[in-house]
């Protein structure tokens, strides 16, 4: 019998280590949202493991009173894969940043998504290198002035969502770093999803890239500039709840309900579970509105399910129970 999961509070998940991020960093919001989400997930504390790479974000495991590993730059998805294959009962979380996952760890990032192993990745995207003190990252904008691009960045950026969907991500969510309630919920949803879940947090770095997202996530403009999508609900946003998305040819278009004969029934209904990622790709590419929420959650077979099924099959077909059975089989001969 599986023992019932204890009732936890967020305090159960806070380690005794002093948190050392810069004051005002969204990382604090992410940490607290995670500590609040974990008691709601129905997982045992001893089964939770955080694996991180290198960077500001990757200090995260030290602040969680769970199992954790602060590993090496970019490799957390590979470490987490080995961990999860070894013990599929664990709730495994990868904590990474835009440099960690899309520059040095780009290869592991795309392959973990392709394989669809059941783990959760939280990508802290602040469009800058923080820990090395302010160089441009793979998500920095063209023209952005940073320590390593004093005359403006010349390298066009990745969109984390586009890259992830191109790598066949089954679950992609995006959340603003200053919306803890929604963030908490998306962490819970990610844990419940079977397969690799990627959550991109639009995280503000107050020191090296302050205000990177303010034009759409400042409290004053947020409702008008951001669309929070929910499965099976029409994609409506705006202070007045009168803006929405429709499909015009091969493009998504923002329309106003009540203008030009547009009614609420004309607005596209979000289908996160659709296998075809075309519409999800369009949503992640939009700049107005910036789309957040669970954009894609397509149920698919996980890597460990395939591995388990194969192992069970091989085990039932095999006569080998112990290694001696193998060693003493086939072309053996005796010397007397």
């Amino acid at each position, binding site marked *: 019998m599986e023992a019932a999961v204890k009732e936890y509070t967020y305090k159960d998940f806070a380690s005794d280590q002093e948190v050392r991020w810069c004051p005002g960093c969204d990382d604090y919001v992410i940490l607290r949202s995670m500590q609040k989400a974990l008691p709601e997930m129905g997982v045992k504390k001893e089964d939770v493991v955080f694996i991180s790479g290198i960077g500001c974000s990757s200090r995260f495991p030290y602040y969680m009173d769970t199992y954790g590993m602060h590993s090496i730059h970019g490799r957390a998805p*590979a470490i987490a894969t*080995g961990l999860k294959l070894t013990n599929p009962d664990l709730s495994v979380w990868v904590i990474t940043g835009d440099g960690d996952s899309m520059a040095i760890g780009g290869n592991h990032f795309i392959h973990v998504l392709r394989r669809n192993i059941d783990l959760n990745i939280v990508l802290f995207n602040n469009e800058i290198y923080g820990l090395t003190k302010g160089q441009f990252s793979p998500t920095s904008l063209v023209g952005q002035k940073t320590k390593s691009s004093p005359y403006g960045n010349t390298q066009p950026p990745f969109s984390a969502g586009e890259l992830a969907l191109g790598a066949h991500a089954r679950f992609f969510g995006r959340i603003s770093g200053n919306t803890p309630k929604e963030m908490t919920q998306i962490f819970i949803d990610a844990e419940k999803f079977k397969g690799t879940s990627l959550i991109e947090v639009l995280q503000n770095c107050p020191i090296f890239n302050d205000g990177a997202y303010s034009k759409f996530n400042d409290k004053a403009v947020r409702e008008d500039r951001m669309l929070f999508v929910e499965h099976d609900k029409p994609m409506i946003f705006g202070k007045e709840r009168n803006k929405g998305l429709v499909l015009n040819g091969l493009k998504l278009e923002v329309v106003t309900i009540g203008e030009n004969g547009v009614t609420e029934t004309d607005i596209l209904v979000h289908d996160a579970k659709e296998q075809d990622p075309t519409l999800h790709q369009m949503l992640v590419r939009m700049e107005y509105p910036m789309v957040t929420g669970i954009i894609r959650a397509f149920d698919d077979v996980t890597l460990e399910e395939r591995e388990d099924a194969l192992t069970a099959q091989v085990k039932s077909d095999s006569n080998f129970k112990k290694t001696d059975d193998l060693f003493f089989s086939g072309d053996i001969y005796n010397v007397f």
Partner: protein
Amino acid sequence: MIATTEKKKQKVIDAVIIRFVGDSGDGMQLTGTQFSDTSAMFGNDVATFPNYPAEIRAPQGSLYGVSGFQVHIGSVEINTPGDDVDLLVAMNPAGLKTNLHALKPGHTVIVDTDSFTKKNLEKALYESNPLEDGSLENYRVIEVAMTSLTKEALKDVEGLDNKTITRSKNMFALGMVYWMYGRSREYTTEFFNKKFKKKPEVIEANTKVLNAGFYFAETLELIPNAYTIAPAKMAPGTYRIIMGNQATAWGFLAAAEKSGLELFLGSYPITPASNILHELVKHKHFGVKTLQAEDEIAGISSAIGASFAGDLAITTTSGPGLALKAEALGLAMMIELPLVIVDVQRGGPSTGLPTKTEQSDLLQAMYGRNGESPIIVIAASTPSNCFEYAYEAAKLTIEHMTPVLLLTDGYIANGSAPWKIKSVASMPEIKNNIIKEAEEDWHPYNRDKDTLARNWAVPGVPGLEHRVGGLEKDRVSGNVSYVPENHEYMTKIRAEKVKRVQNYIPDVVPEFTEEGDLLVVGWGGTYGSLHSAVKELNEEGYNNIGFAHFNYINPLPKNTSEVFSKYKKIIVCELNSGQFVKVLKINCSEFNFLQFNKIQGLPFANNELVEKFKSLV
């Protein structure tokens, strides 16, 4: 059976070295394997070495498309696949051209005359036909129209296409060689019956051609002798022929079973290590988990994750891959988790000589990481003892909680030899450091007072939640610590932990003489060559030469200096420009070391060693 009339011509010999060569598609690996397996079943000692091109499908008939298989069998102890050969079987001109240099003068070469066409001679860059221009006059040449004879033998077999017919000519050659060495065809015909179960016409064809070759040799006056090689005197027991890489894989299987852990392999394909992955992926019935990762780094990283979760975790690679794994190896060392890295060495640097052997990764294994990061380094020395040293690598890493790097090389990894099968029950115990429940005053960096191994707290156990990482950590709690004295303490204790492995490994035991004028020192895959050379010299009366071979490199066996002190001269022999000798100079600085080095992608040849050693005494 050899006809009675032929018996008077039989000649008894101790050992023979045969090389089968032909085009990549001529089935030389299969031919060689059949001959060596049959000889092993007969009771001979055996060593084999395949030699095939790096190109997968090289153009037919080209010099670089030649595939070869060398086998050395004997009624005496066989330690290597041998150097120069007694019999060369050349299926085409390119094979003859690239291998004739290895045939001992006056010895026999069998050629398929049908393949010596104008086109094939041109492809092999022969200006005239060597069968006609007198260039083979120092050898005994047996010319056989193997392709035509094969076709003739199969003319009544229904349902065969031309390709199948031509491809079975290797069995004609094998049949001839079976007759020459008095071997039974039974093992090979059984092999056909199993392998081609669903294609009776292919069984019939191969069997017919094998027999045709056998009877052809029997009646052919060109073959003056049949040879008899008696079974070797080997320790009683149950044996099988095993390849080095297979033995490595099996050593890990045994260690996993003995330790009660499951085996995890994270790996990325690389020559010549890949067939460890190919072998282990077959064994899901033992709960083996394998991940063919996206790159070398992910291979080792996934293994680190598996180790954190409580598996016996390994990763396999060769030189360039080891370079890529260096950072992650440093992490495993820093967080003090068990991990075995197998490096099947090949010729370097960079991509180097992927299909050739060398011992040039030793210093990379020892020092190829940032910071001060000592790990345990051991080396296997024969195809069959890859089993023991893989097992030992697993035992050491689990018991001492620090990574172990196991060095093998292309020569022993692809070579095969008889292995006296070890049952798991006969292997030494493996005690793991896993803690099953939270005890009072538990800390992640609590250490065993003897080994200094920290305990292994695996996720899933309530109360043991903890964080590890690459940052320096407090000596007890494992929390991040930048305290200067703590860093020095931790650096020293990680080194001391490796040093103390000396208390758990065997002494190095010199062979032939415990004291004398010369000590031959080797390590890893050169054991067979060095042992054979020193043995030959001892048999010639040079009983003042000893031989010490090292399987434990870091740390060295405790008695190393003591052994060295008993000899007037020490010569360190390596297939590199002198890497182990550097390790010895650091650890045993009181001695003067001579060196013998070879950097040709080839193993030591017996005569070069014998000459060198003779010149020193």
